[in-house]
């Protein structure tokens, strides 16, 4: 394969043709922030937090998707780059609830000196975001910073959608669509600041094409998509991530051999993930591997734990009904 030589922050690096600037940075252990980029999804380059300055380009370019070119000169820490990254993080932090982002993102925000408060106090949650029309918004006095805050969508027993935390990175849409599941239950709807992830006509998930594989949860970087169990435990103030163990096992449902990471708190499985680098799953699972673990802890001889009540609450559906008998097996 042909090779391309370029310079990143003064260091020369040779990469296979077709690599991205981000690949080149990684080859140099030159860590770059990303939000909408994930190794197992097609780059959409929408968050713009990975932008870098390339000599000869009028604007900054997204390193996650710009292919390297011979002789390219890349600066990842210029004034312009630092400014844009700071602003992107500030724009998101001032409009979205970022409490649950990973530590690396928090560190980057500190690194760039983000101050989301300077846009004013955040506006109250809105209840009409799913009905907003393209091209028409209400103009306020500007004294509050507009946000995407809104009520959590709880419409099934398996996972919730808290779009107050959504940075619109498109990852869930990609995982639901061509990059993994090919279900296409969700898409970006609306326009501009009112753009949002939605099913058709904002119908509930149980009424949509969703197959509850949970692959959208697996790729969500901000906790906007969350196991119902985690959601209820957090609401109750009983989510103790530090006390959880993670046990890797192989899914027992079929012969594919998907690896599962069982997240266990108080001897109860509270969440299931799959390692992103696993050759079989690339982090993706099906409904059985992701959610079909209840039988493990329904044997009847387990001691009652403090979180059992909460987990039972997680299985109440949106109409207040307890789970159907057949949902146990």
């Amino acid at each position, binding site marked *: 394969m042909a090779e391309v030589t370029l310079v990143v922050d003064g260091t020369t690096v040779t990469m296979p043709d077709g690599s991205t600037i981000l690949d080149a940075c990684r080859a140099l252990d030159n860590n770059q922030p990303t939000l909408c980029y994930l190794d197992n999804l097609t780059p959409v*380059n929408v968050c*713009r937090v990975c*932008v870098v300055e390339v000599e000869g380009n009028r*604007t900054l370019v997204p390193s996650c998707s710009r292919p390297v070119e011979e002789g390219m000169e890349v600066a990842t820490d210029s004034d312009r780059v630092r400014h844009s990254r700071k602003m992107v993080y500030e724009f998101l932090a001032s*409009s979205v609830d970022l409490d649950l982002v990973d530590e690396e993102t928090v560190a980057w925000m500190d690194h760039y000196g983000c101050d989301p408060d300077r846009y*004013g106090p955040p506006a109250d949650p809105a209840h009409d975001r799913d009905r907003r029309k*393209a091209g028409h918004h209400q103009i306020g006095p500007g004294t509050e910073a507009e946000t995407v805050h809104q009520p959590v969508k709880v419409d099934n027993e398996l996972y919730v959608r808290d779009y107050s935390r959504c940075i619109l990175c498109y990852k869930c849409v990609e995982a639901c669509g061509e990059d993994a599941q090919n279900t296409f239950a969700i898409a970006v709807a609306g326009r501009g*600041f009112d753009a949002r992830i*939605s*099913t058709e006509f904002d119908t509930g998930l149980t009424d949509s094409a969703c197959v509850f594989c949970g692959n959208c949860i697996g790729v969500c970087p901000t906790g906007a998509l969350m196991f119902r169990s985690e959601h209820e435990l957090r609401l109750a103030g009983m989510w103790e991530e530090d006390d959880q163990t993670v046990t890797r096992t192989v899914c027992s449902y079929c012969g594919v051999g998907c690896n599962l990471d069982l997240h266990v708190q108080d001897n109860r499985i509270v969440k299931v993930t799959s390692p992103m680098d696993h050759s079989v799953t690339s982090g993706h699972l099906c409904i059985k591997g992701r959610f079909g673990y209840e039988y493990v802890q329904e044997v009847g001889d387990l001691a009652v734990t403090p979180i059992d009540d909460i987990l039972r609450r997680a299985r109440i559906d949106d109409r207040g009904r307890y789970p159907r008998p057949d949902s146990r097996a």
Partner: protein
Amino acid sequence: MSAEPTTAERSAVDAFLGPPTPSEDGEPAHSGDRRVAFGGYRRSMESRHMLLPALHAVNDAVGWVSAGALNYICERLQVPPAEAYGVAGFYALLSLEERPARVAHVCDDVACRTMGGAELLEGLEGRPDVHPSPCLGQCDQAPAVFFQRAGEEDTVEVGATYDRVVEVLEGGSVREVPPIAPQAGDPSLRLLKRIGLVDPTSLAGYRDTGGYQPLARAVAMGPEQVIAEVKMSDLRGRGGAAFPMGIKWEAVARSPDMPHYLICNADESEPGTFKDRVIMEDDPFAVIESMTIAGLAVGAERGYLYIRAEYPLAQSRLQNAIDLARAAGLLGEDVAGSGCSFEIEIRRGGGAYICGEETALMNSIEGKRGEPRNKPPFPTQVGLFGRPTVINNVETLINVLDIVLEGGAAFAEIGTGASTGPKLFCLAGAVARPGVYEVEFGRTLGELIDLAGGVTGSGRIGAVMLGGAAGLFVGEDHLDMPLTFEDARARNATLGSGVVLVFDDRTDFRDTSRRIAQFFRDESCGQCVPCRVGTVRQEELLARHLGGEPLDRDLFEEVARVMVDASICGLGHTASTAIRSVIDLGLLERSRG
């Protein structure tokens, strides 16, 4: 979501797509579950580009797109309903909620709002069938109202009044007005020579005035020579970016990747711009002939003319021109004896400024949300349907008629050295004779305003908006600026789309700048963070200032800078320029009280 279409909705879709074939409509394809796509990925990809026209078909016939109608379209086209919903909701003119059969979109954008549009809208406020609208491209006849009428054609009323709007909403029809052609009869006109003089619906009339001689010449010359002439003409794109047209054409013509596509960008939506509308309405054959020459030159067999939905008259005249040209052998197989085939299809936008951005336009044609693509790759490499594509705006394209006829070298003599050819400008606002004016590059801003009869209102210029909302405001000190690409660049101005919108010194620029901030927030596609949030923060910042707080100029610049540096497309790149120029000219202070 299981919702069934009504009979009317089903017929509207079937009238457009044709009746369903047994394989589409038989068992077991449904089994009552309309969410599931059975046609396979490939068929879905092949029919996806019909999504926007199909949504239009229902919206036109019934007035809105219900869940049942959306499901039926999705079933016919094998598009996932969530995606179709996302596409439909991207466009301001497609309604996903039931609404009155007749709806008025009243322009309250920068031009119309100072010419009675703001008062008109205020008077109509509270009516469920009235919505404010961004620029409708009728600035020379402000205020303008665009009507959507379920079961009937869309229509536009210019010089609108309260009574007239109510009358049309209650079943009346709009008034037809003759074209505004302030230069009609001037023998030096090239682009506007037929406007107001030649019947735009008659192929014979077009031919009698020299029409289709350029195509005959182009066929005789052959594609390579046509491209050589275009390159020699040094014609630069009139859409705002001023990119040399010949380079695009050559790149596509030489690409081994087939098929090639041609797109005429007629999504003229830049506030203050209406020149392409005038050409399309009153010289539609010129557009069709130019596209045909371009298509043959770059080896495309299909051309798309993407026109904004707010131009219904232009659309019907263009369709008539296409039909007559095809019947005369000037489109279709073996165009004008060339041995090549070329077809033109009109595609209608849905009310989205961003779809004038070339890659957003391509996504829109492909049935996706009109979100711009990251560049590179450029459209000449990976364009419509992933193929090499030439995309030119209407005004740019029609220059090719004279280039072919007179030769590129002669054309390059017109204008100035770096800005060749004639140029159209949209004069509106506080001028005596608003309209589209054609001049050679090099006339000054002041001369142009004089050509339009000088400043009205107070008679004193407050500021001139150059190049649209994506352009900027200049003061009287720019009246001596020659209107060329190079002079504009030298003075940090832009010609943009040719907007020369004149405001007198009594204008409330606080109101104007607020509207521009609102415009960019409304029209941002929402894809990238800098623009999606930046346009909101910019509007809030300005609103705080207009509410009495001191302007946080540093923060304004910080917001502007990230939009310029890190946005995906030109919308974000230009979202601050006009507002910054209003601030810098001191117009906000001057407009106070």
